């Protein structure tokens, strides 16, 4: 187990390195940020001076080595647009995204899994069919469009929820979050629902498929032959078995939502990291892009590692092998 952890973390380091090179080369290929950043009327001298200042006159490999050297000293660079350290910039935006994703995942799982279980338990009922129809809508209708409809309905026509932005930030246990205030919740609930719909549809379909399949297995029949109640069969026997694919997809979805909640954040002008990265790409703010993508890689690696550990807890046949 411990050996397995060490091995996975070592792999993670390699992945992060490889990713940083790819990102660096990719960003380099996009173009020279100075052209975007400075006043088009600036003289050639100022231009050359700035290029030298950011080290952009160096060959790519030297720029990369300089970057690595800075990273080793804990310096991820300074944003060319905001002129503050990138780490501070990203971490000032991260809590907003985290709370949005947290609420949306909670909604997706809290509604999606029970609804999927029911739809799989009574597949021929009208309620099950309604649930399945909703799940299809959930992941086939574009997110931005639903987002705009939500704003139209609840913010413009009914006027009961704010149309965008993050609300008042309160403090719970030293963590600053808008989830600590009522105003914060009123701001977060609509984008969170918007962000959760796709995942909810996915959860419903996965859970239902697993449930339908599991109810036909011999171990469920055997449990019924022992006189177990349906409740016991579903919650003690089936749920544990079908949770393995659910956890897999949940992990993948959690990662991609954290990294790319961009659309929802744009529609609801939510000041999260998704919006930051889009702005940075438009303005060719290299240090922000590189730092952010490295952070995303680390997030994915951590989530996948957690998923693997959860597997081993859920399914005794999974053995985590370290070393070899």
């Amino acid at each position, binding site marked *: 187990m411990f050996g397995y952890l060490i091995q996975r973390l070592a792999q993670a380091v390699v992945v992060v390195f490889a990713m940083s090179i790819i990102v660096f080369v990719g960003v380099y290929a996009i173009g020279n940020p100075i052209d975007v950043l400075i006043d088009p009327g600036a003289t050639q001298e100022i231009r050359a001076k700035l290029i030298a200042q950011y080290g952009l006159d160096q060959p790519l490999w030297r720029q990369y080595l300089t970057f690595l050297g800075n990273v080793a000293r804990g310096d991820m660079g300074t944003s060319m647009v905001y002129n503050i350290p990138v780490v501070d910039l990203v971490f000032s935006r991260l809590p907003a995204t985290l709370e949005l994703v947290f609420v949306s995942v909670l909604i997706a799982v809290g509604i999606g899994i029970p609804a999927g279980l029911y739809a799989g338990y009574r597949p*021929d009922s009208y309620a099950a069919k309604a649930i399945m129809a909703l799940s299809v809508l959930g992941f086939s209708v574009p997110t931005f469009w639903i987002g705009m409809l939500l704003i139209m309905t609840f913010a413009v026509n009914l006027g009961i929820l704010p149309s965008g932005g993050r609300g008042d930030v309160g403090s719970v246990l030293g963590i600053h979050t808008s989830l600590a205030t009522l105003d914060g919740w009123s701001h977060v609930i609509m984008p969170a629902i918007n962000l959760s719909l796709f995942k909810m549809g996915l959860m419903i379909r996965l859970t239902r498929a697993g449930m339908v399949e599991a109810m036909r*297995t*011999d*171990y469920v*029949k*055997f*449990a*019924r*032959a*022992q*006189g*177990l*109640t349906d409740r*016991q069969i579903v919650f*003690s*026997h089936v749920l*544990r*078995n079908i949770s393995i694919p659910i956890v897999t997809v949940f992990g993948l979805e959690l990662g991609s939502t954290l990294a790319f909640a961009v659309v929802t954040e744009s529609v609801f002008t939510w000041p999260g990291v998704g919006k930051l990265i889009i702005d940075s790409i438009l303005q060719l703010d290299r240090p922000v892009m590189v730092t952010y993508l490295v952070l995303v890689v680390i997030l994915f690696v951590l989530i996948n590692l957690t998923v693997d550990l959860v597997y081993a807890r*859920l*399914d*005794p*046949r999974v053995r985590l092998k370290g070393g070899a």
Partner: protein
Amino acid sequence: MSAALEVRNLTTRFDTRRGPVTAVNGVSFSVQPGRIMGLVGESGSGKSVTGFSILGLIDAPGRITDGEVLVDGTDLRSLSPDALRRMRGKHVAMVFQDPMMTLNPVLRVGDQMAMAVRVHDRVSKAAAWDRARKALETVGIPSPAERLKAYPHQLSGGMRQRVAIATALLHGPSVIIADEPTTALDVSIQGQILAEVRRLADETGTAIVWVTHDLAVVSSLADDISVMYAGRIVESGTTEEVLSAPRHPYTHGLIDSVPTRHAPGRELPQIPGSTPQLINLPEGCAFRPRCPRATAACAVQPSKSGETHFALCHHPLTEADR
């Protein structure tokens, strides 16, 4: 002595897209306490569906349309779904064919068995585990306390089937339906389990319905035999009677097609044709198209001939025919 299990005129139908299929057609039999009845038939003869129908475990599109299932005198068919559930496992239990599939792979053996104990009896978890351990001991599992902590994949097939049998025995049911429980096992393990089951029936007085396609198995195990063909019991009697003096041509054909060492070098006779599709059975006797003794009379459904040892045939075999 009253029968532990009495099945009267049990009929189970499946409403398929191509029309209704009667998988079990007016099946009647009874099993006395401590006796083992072999329910023999080919695939698709309705023997497994009979087993599931007894426990009321038929899922849509199937449903039991007629008949009574009396366990210790209680008609299971007249009970509410919840009352029926309380009978399952407590008074009538079941063991399945494939031991690899009948245990939940992600739960420890002990947890699964303890759940089966506690659903019918309000006992502590520790007491339930203790009963599970004793049940494993009964079916001859060595170091049962350790086995309880194991997951199913850590046990061999034979061991798992013993666990399943032990689970069925937890509440000392009057009746156990065993649906080909040794088919998936090695012959040597099969022998051990058969001996174990025979001993359990004798010691506990449990009545057992042993569903199988294997005549060799029932010949050494069962007290009585019922032969099923196309949803009906076509011949029934004691094992001795049925095997040594079969009356139905189908039973005779089955016995004849088992290789023996008494006639080496002889080409094995087989029953011509194949099992009929239940969706379009011929009028009258379903075995008619394959039967060497069939006549025009067979176009009418035959009635039972004989009392305790009976066959459903217009032209039952006599001593002279064998």
